[in-house]
Structures are given as C-alpha cells and as structure tokens.
C-alpha cells in the first residue's frame, strides 16, 4: 500500500533532484557558437527517475532497519552464518575457487590487452588495499598518507635502476624494505595519536613525500618524472608489448596471492590478535601486557611493505612515473577500497578494489557522469552496508574442545 504522504515525499524528492541536477543536466553552453542549449527532456527523465527511485530507497531503508532491529534483539546469528557458510562449506567454496582460478588464468587469453591492463591495475589496488587493511582494518589506525609508501617503492626502483641499473627482481625486495623503513619513520612521531589527529598527520606525511618528489629536481627529476623504466625481464626473455602485458598480469596475480597468504597468516596470529586488541581498546590492550609501541610500528611497517613492493611493480608496468601519480586522491581511493570492501576482511578488500577500480573504467560509456555515478555507488553502499561489502568474515578463534592431555 502506498500512502499519500509517501507520494508527497517522493514528489518533493524528485523536485529537489530536478533543481540540483538542473545546471549539469539541462543547460549546455556551447562557447564556440555562443549558444545555450536547454535540454528540458533530461529534466523530465530526472524527475520521473528520482520519483520512482525514492520509493525503492525507502523500501530498502525499511528493510535495513527491520534487519537492524532483529540484530539488536540478539538475532544476528542468521546473517553471520550465511557468510560463514559460503566460506566454510567446502562444497560451496571449492568449486567457487576453481571457477575463479580458471577465469583468472584464462583472462588475458580471452580478453584484449586493454582489458588485461585494467585488470593488472585493479590487482595493484587489491595489493594496496590489503596492505592498508593491516593498518586501518586490523590495527584501527586511520592512515591517509598511504600513497607515500607506494611512491617510495616506485621511486626506489626508478632511481636505483637509473643510477645503478638495478634489475626489477632485486628492486622488488628493496622497494618493500624501503617501504617498511618509511612506515617506521612515519610510525614514530604518530605513536601517541589516534583517530582524526592521526589522519591529519599521515595526510601531511603523504603530501610531504609528494612535494619533495616534485621539487627536488636533482634527486627525483621533479614533475617531469622518470621515463624509460625497464619492464621486468624473465630469465633474459625479451617480451613483445603484448607478452609484457600478460607477464605483468601473471606477476601481479602471483604477488597478490602471496600478499593474501601472508596477510591471512598475520591476521590469524599472535601479532594479528594484538592489532585487533589495539583497535578495540588501546588502554586495556596495554594493560594486558601488549607493547603498544611495538605493535603500532609493526602495523605501520608491515602495511607499508606491500605499498613499497607494489610501487616497484607500478613503475615497471607504466615505465614512466612522476609525482602526479601519488596524490592524496590515490590514498583516499585506497582507503575507500578498505572501508567499502569491509574493514579487516581480506575477501572484502579484494571485492572493494575490483568494484572501485573497474567501475569507473566500465562506466566510461556514461563519460561525463561516471564520477557522479561512482559517488552515488559509494553513498548507497555506505548507507546500506556500512560494514562493507563483505564484513565480519574474520576467522575468530573458536574453542573446539580440550585434547586428551589436559582433559580430566
């Protein structure tokens, strides 16, 4: 049953939207021919569209609130068990994994180089997201300067190769190491900070790195950047452009798998538990004998390691880097990946990266509206799934019973 008041509400919503989108949807100024085009038809579509969508929105909102009430009444077990079923039931996830593996392997052979390239970029962001997930998702330290470590990795390969001819494979661990080192460097001054204050300082740190790279011409060649960075070789094989793209793709797949493996192990370990405890309650965590300094620094260092490593890959992939690739916007995208995907959840972060990187690419069909749609998707996601696409799949330690030894 649709009530009159709801229709009235929707009417005002559509009116408001028509007003808001008026400048971009209706008016088109052609400065060359000096004419203004009025596209009233668009206004009509917006009005109808938002009128109908507001009903959908309200319906979804009601459903969400009903779900929340259910959860408050202590009935949240249903939801969790649904996800756990997917991830714990071998009958479901093993065929799933096989399908994913086949798709991943066949991808570059089926799709064009262009598509493969986009996928490689998405995988770069998957790795960045997984790295930042350690800092933000597990340890709960809001880091807005994560891109700095990415830049450190990229420049370490570019510069070491330019000056000393260091190969990609050597630069990979060096980049990771330098990333970790810079993570600790950033970690020390911000040990006492939390939340908003930490975010501001890390934001500043990210900008410092970028501005240094932009202005210290003798060191980093300034805004003109470094070109002709060699692609990775593979036992002396020279690749064609096509081959190199494919190789980069499979390299990123391997590195991503490696990252998933290590991050998963870390999160289900003594250190991972300490990170989560630090996120939950810093004072209690310290009172329980966890060294806050050490725990925070390992989070920063291990988070930054992945950014450093993937920075090397990025430099090798694009063969040209300049400071413009390492702006705050990048940090924010990576943070969005973590938050949207689901903080602390590895599968969530992978989904988040794929959505956020692939969506703008495939929205190119909508050309000028794609960032608008992108923003809308973010808002809708956060309203309806504030915990992220896939939240709370963190494996908790469950007690399965004592072994014979200690059983009485």
């Amino acid at each position: 049953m649709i009530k009159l008041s709801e229709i009235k509400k929707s009417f005002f919503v559509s009116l408001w939207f028509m007003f808001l989108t008026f400048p971009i949807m209706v008016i088109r100024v052609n400065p060359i021919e000096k004419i203004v085009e009025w596209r009233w038809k668009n206004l009509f579509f917006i009005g109808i569209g938002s009128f109908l969508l507001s009903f959908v929105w309200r319906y979804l909102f009601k459903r969400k609130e009903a779900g929340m009430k259910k959860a408050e009444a202590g009935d949240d077990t249903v939801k969790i068990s649904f996800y756990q079923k997917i991830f714990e039931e071998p009958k479901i996830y093993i065929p799933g994994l096989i399908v994913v593996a086949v798709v991943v392997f066949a991808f570059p052979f089926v799709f064009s180089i262009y598509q493969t390239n986009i996928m490689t970029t998405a995988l770069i962001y998957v790795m960045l997201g997984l790295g930042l997930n350690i800092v933000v998702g597990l340890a709960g330290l809001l880091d807005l300067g994560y891109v700095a470590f990415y830049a450190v990795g990229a420049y370490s390969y570019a510069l070491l190769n330019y000056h000393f001819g260091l190969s990609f494979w050597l630069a990979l661990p060096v980049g990771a190491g330098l990333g970790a080192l810079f993570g600790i460097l950033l970690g020390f001054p911000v040990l006492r900070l939390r939340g908003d204050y930490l975010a501001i300082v890390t934001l500043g740190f990210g900008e410092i790195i970028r501005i240094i790279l932009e202005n210290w011409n003798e060191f980093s060649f300034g805004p003109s950047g470094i070109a002709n960075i060699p692609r990775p070789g593979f036992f002396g094989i020279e690749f064609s452009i096509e081959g190199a793209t494919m190789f980069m793709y499979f390299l990123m797949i391997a590195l991503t798998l490696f990252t998933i493996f290590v991050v998963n192990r870390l999160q289900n370990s003594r250190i991972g538990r300490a990170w989560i405890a630090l996120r939950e309650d810093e004072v209690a965590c310290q009172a329980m004998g966890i060294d806050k300094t050490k725990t925070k620094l390992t989070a920063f260092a291990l988070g930054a390691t992945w950014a450093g490593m993937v920075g090397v890959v990025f430099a090798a992939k694009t063969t040209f880097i300049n400071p413009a690739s390492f702006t705050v916007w990048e940090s924010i995208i990576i943070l969005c990946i973590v938050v949207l995907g689901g903080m602390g959840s590895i599968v969530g972060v992978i989904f988040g990266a794929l959505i956020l990187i692939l969506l703008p690419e495939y929205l190119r069909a909508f050309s000028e509206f794609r960032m608008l749609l992108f923003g809308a998707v973010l808002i809708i996601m956060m309203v309806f799934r504030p915990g992220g696409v896939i939240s709370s799949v963190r494996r908790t330690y469950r007690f399965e019973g004592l072994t014979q030894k200690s059983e009485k």
Partner: protein
Amino acid sequence: MKKILEVKNLTMNFGGLCALDRIDLDISEGEIVALIGPNGAGKTTFFNCITGIYPPTEGKMFIFPPGKARKSIKGLKPNQVTEKGLARTFQNIRLFPNMTVLENVMIGRHCRMSSGIAGAVFRNKATVREENAIVEESYIILQKIGLSEYVNEFAKNLPYGAQRRLEIARAMATEPFLLLLDEPAAGMNLRETKELDELIVKIRNTEGISILLIEHDMKLVMSLSDRIFVVDYGKKIAQGTPEEIQKNPVVIKAYLGEDFDA
C-alpha cells in the same frame, strides 16, 4: 609474611591538583587488601600510578616477585608492569567487545608468548604448538572463573556480571602474582556480588594470587579483606583490619560528615 608490593610516599599532581599525597601502602603475600574512600578520593589514580598509566610525580614503588629480587616499577610502561606480574581490571569495563571471550583471554596470554612475524608467516611447529597451547590454557582459565559456557560468544554479548568476571579472567591470563581489581562489584546484584566474593577468595586460595581491590560495597569489603586502607582527598587517613576501620572515627567522619552523632 613476605611483602610483595611496597609503595612509599606516592604523590601525584595534576597541575595544581594533588590527587595523591604521600601515600604509603604495602601488601604481603596471600593477602586480600582493600582500598576504600569516598568518590574522587584518588583510588583509581593510585591504581593508574602503580600500573604505569600515569607517571607519579614523586615516590617509590617496589615489587617483590616470588623467587626474584626487589624491583622498582616506577617509570615502567603499563605493558612492562603487567609483564612483571601485576594485572588489573578497570572500573568501567574495558573488554575487547568484538572479540570472542576466548580471544579476550588469549590477549592476556600475549606477553607470555614469544612467536614473532616470521613465526606468524611460516607457521612453524613451535608457533602452532604455542597457539594450540594458549587456546587450551585460556579455556582452563575460563573454566576456573566459571565462564566456559560463553567461550565462543562475543564479549559484547555477555551479561554484565559475566563481563566483569571476564575482565578478571583476562587479567589472570597474564599470570600475575598480584591482581588489582577496580570496583569489581560495581553494578552487580546481590547474588552476583556473593559469587564474586567466593571467586576472589578462590583465586587467592587456589591460585596463590594476592589481591588489591577498590570497592564501594562495604559488605563485600568487610567480609573479604584482611586489611583495609582508607584514602580521602588523596591522603591516607587510616589503615587496619576491617574491625579497626569500622570503629575508626576518622573514617566515619570522612564517609558520613562532620556532625554525625552515632
């Protein structure tokens, strides 16, 4: 009896405010000692000083761990104090709400474990053994505290009284020789308080852990404690056995005011 904690002349100033004024306190092995006083007397500040959350302005603090020599704990960080064998609970519950009961206790065992990053990544035999061991040890602690039925629940979903007990379990997991309880009975009903009373005695008797507690529930304090210290406005105004404290005119004055005629 052997002393295990000795605090001398402890003073804590916050700017011009003197929260603790030359407090002396000592605890012997196997004792249950209570620290009482009106609201704002400085009891929690005293705890925070001993456990390293605040650096005291002045004074000395020593611990005598069993089988080890006297050590000063002044200037140590909270985690170092805990490592030395002093564990505490908090007045307002500070559990890790989104971790399970078992995980909460496992965090307490953190400082008694040794595996590092390499162990976590390679998951070698020693790490696996250690991980399995702490799951069992943590469960045994939960059994002792009577929380084993909640083992896989999230801490935030526990009833209030159980949350309070979980704080004690978590503190015990750090293997302390002295347990500092900050108002463990706050907000508990009569039955829960009685259970807590039995639990504290049990911890002292079977685990050999000495206890220092802050508490407002006088019935609990009088039945539990071997000795009582009373503070008011940051000063220690009395110390002695429960009987002595109950009769002490200074204490009565501090609690009930100047013009009280009994």
